[in-house]
């Protein structure tokens, strides 16, 4: 959803963007990606875009974008996570005092 926040994208572009944003830590295959999209669409958080294809584009591509509900859900989720992180910071949960191997 985060990846769709700045505009609509087609499936492969979403996967590439997630790969780039997470520096390769999350690599989505088509099955995982479309499975997720299917659930997001069903929850009315994301919808297929009916905008015309750009010229020279593969006609099989379908573009996805956030719905209004998706955008507000995303925002509240980010707020919630930010709270968790700030609490964790204050309590030093993320400090790692462990020395490496002797």
């Amino acid at each position: 959803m985060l990846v769709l926040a700045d505009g609509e994208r087609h499936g492969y572009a979403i996967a590439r963007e997630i790969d780039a944003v997470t520096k390769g830590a999350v690599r989505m295959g088509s099955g995982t990606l479309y499975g997720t999209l299917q659930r997001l669409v069903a929850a009315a958080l994301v919808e297929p875009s009916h905008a015309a294809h750009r010229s020279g584009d593969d006609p099989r591509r379908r573009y996805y974008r956030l719905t209004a509900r998706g955008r507000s859900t995303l925002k509240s989720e980010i707020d919630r996570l930010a709270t968790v992180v700030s609490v964790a910071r204050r309590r030093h949960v993320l400090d790692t005092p462990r020395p490496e191997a002797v």
Partner: protein
Amino acid sequence: MSAPQSTAQPSHAARAIARMYPASLRGAHGDEIACFVDELRGDTRFASGIVGRARLLVHLAGDLFASRMPAPRRTRSPLGDPPRRERRLETFLQDARLALRAMARRPAFTCVAVITLMLGIGANTAIFSVVSAVLLRPLPFPHADRLAVLWATNSTNRQLLASIDDVNDWRARTRTFADIGMVRTQSVNLTGAGAPDRLVGSFVTANSLTLLGARAALGRLFTTAETEKGTGQTVAIVSYDAWRTRFGADRAILGRTLVLNGRPHVVIGVTDSAFADPFNAQVWLPITSAPNPNWFQRGNASVWAVGRVRDGVTMDRAQQDLSAVAAQLSREYPATNAGSGALVIPLRDWLVGTVRPTLVIVLAFVGVVLLIACANVANLQLARATGRRREMSLRAALGAGRSRLVRQLLTENLVLSVLGGAAGVLFARWAIGVLVNAVPGGLPTFGDVGIDGGVLLFSAALTVGAGLLFGIAPALHASRARLTDALTLRTGEAGHGRRLDPRQAFAALQLALCIVLLAGAALLDRSLGALREVNVGFDPHDVLTAEFRLPAAKYRSDTAITEFMQRAIGAIRAIPGVQSAALVNAVPLSGNFGLNAYLPEGAPATDPAQEPTAQVNGVTDQFFRTMRIPIIAGRDFDGRDRADAAPVVVVDQELARRAWPNQSAIGKQVTVRFTPVVTATVIGVVGSVKQLTVGEPASPQIYVPIAQQPGIFNSVVARTSRDPMLLAGALRSAIWSIDPDQPVWKARSLDSLVERDMAGPRFAVVLTAAFALLALTLAVVGVYGVMSFTVAQRTHEVGIRMALGARRSDVTRMVLVQGGRVVAVALAFGLVGALGAGRLIRNQLFGVSAADPVALVGVTLGLGLVALAACYLPARRAARVDPVIALRAE
């Protein structure tokens, strides 16, 4: 990334791949998926070379797998939860995926754990496949569990051949047996078909073959008439193997006449290839073709009986029944049967009796090796679990229940053990081949030893069991996570309290189990050493032995036999390189022997059945010299001891001691229960020899001159001036120079007979020692790992100590003391375990006590030192800690 392929139509490959996705996805996104795949194929990461393609395949496979997994549910479905079982499976698959990922991230840990489990499970699978084939698999005979071998007994011997008349009475009078047949195997001379040869013959009644389920592949089996009285035509049946190897699989063998033991026999059948004779016969003859007519006298022990108990009758019940009949017979025929009984031994016990204890010991050994392997992996897991405690705490804080965490960790272990188990089965496939070829004398199995369904089931059970065994403690340990742990945990908490922490307890357990195995192997090794020290009573080096049997049909009189023997021994002594030679009925340790009751002069006459028995052996002169058996008193046999001279015997010192303690045996009379009974004068006393096994206790032995008790079966012993086996051909030629039709077999060195007798114990030692060393390696690696880990955890503390002025030696000592506690606990428990294990295997020990101090103390000390050495390396590393570095991390 490169520009995506821009094709309107997806490639065939992409369409094929898209079709593999679940229908729910395909319906809505089929085209998109195909397009996606095409774009992936154009991606720079996947497009170049074999590596790229392989990467793509892995990626696609992972994605396909993932897309078939149920989707994670973050919220409760409005339709309610799916059934519990389905939810569990879903969780399990999800955990399995997590586990595979986690393992891939830690290849070193995964490799060590999988190899450890592979060795443990593989060794167990290999040994179990042998156990399964030898002890568990049904024997290939009809109603095999109801078949038994029946023996006669007397007051001193538990397993004797029975007389034919007795077996006939057993068959007629018992009610618990459906049928009883007779079998007697004996070498048979085959002549008139090329070089004279020897076949393993079996003299049988017709019903024996049917009891054992024999079928004829060609021709037919015996009729009852043929084996009861004889029908005028002597007949024989050839085994399938002999038919192929000796007779070129010639179908025309039916009706052909074979000269067996000098008498013509017409071949009436060839057994089926599936028939596995438990007596390993190559040719069957009717019992009416017995080589010796005195087989048919009551009181002459000549046959085994094979019986099948009736359906629903236990072996115990059959034993009672048979004993009652034997008691009746001993009342009816006191002259021959007084004091004799009968013994029922289930066929399987008879076949595998000697192997069973060794197999059970080895199975127990590998079981313990697996326990050690599990402890090892558990320790690896514990070390990891401590590292993951933070992760667990956070997950618990975020709402994961403890059971959920335990389940996740257990799933990881299960995945690990499944990998180990699969590798173990492959390892076992290889190990079984090595094992089966290494067993001396072969295994008493019918069919191949291999990995069948039962073995696989066993391995699967082991795998799951192992996964739980090494998983449960680390899982509980790691899941004992509280939020406060995550917030307050410091790393110096690893056990330096009074009690051992779980890792140290596991290391101690490994060491303790290892002591048990090492002590067991050491006991067996010391037992073998004791066996080697045994004085067999003769000098086995540079002695050639061989066996032959004269055909009774050709050598009808004692004179003819004696004449052959004299000429043969003369020819053998004339062979260049032979220093001395003699003939003997039964070469020591060859498996042959004779037992007779005897009555020494001065002992009160009793019931013949109560008389003591002695091993009786017929020999020619020079036997004692050839064997280097010391003559303690009197003289050797010589030319004076002819057939027509007064009967004489030589006795061994054991008989002389028992019969005439503190007196000279020379000149005393001894009565030997030959048929007819002979009373002879003792002319010499010789040292005792081991006749049946190296480990047997000294028993009374009587030697008679062959000239006075001529028999058709004899062996040659020849002391040679060089490698005895080089003279085997010359020995055959010497005998053939007297009778070109006389087969000679089993040309062997006396040394090889002694070695053969020890092969079983030696094999047990090699196997148990190998497993004990494997266990030692695992345990030492385990202890080293635990101590290293502990030291790493205490780095901070060590840094502080050193900053406050502790010397390096203090630090080393501190760590060594900690390791020493683990070792001390292990040694204490291990010693107790070793004492227990020694008691379990004491029946397999010879000349060594089950609590042999040398073995126990040696093993304990040795292992203690090795374990301390494994602690010393981490201790030294701890002493090198630089306080600045150790404290900077805070």
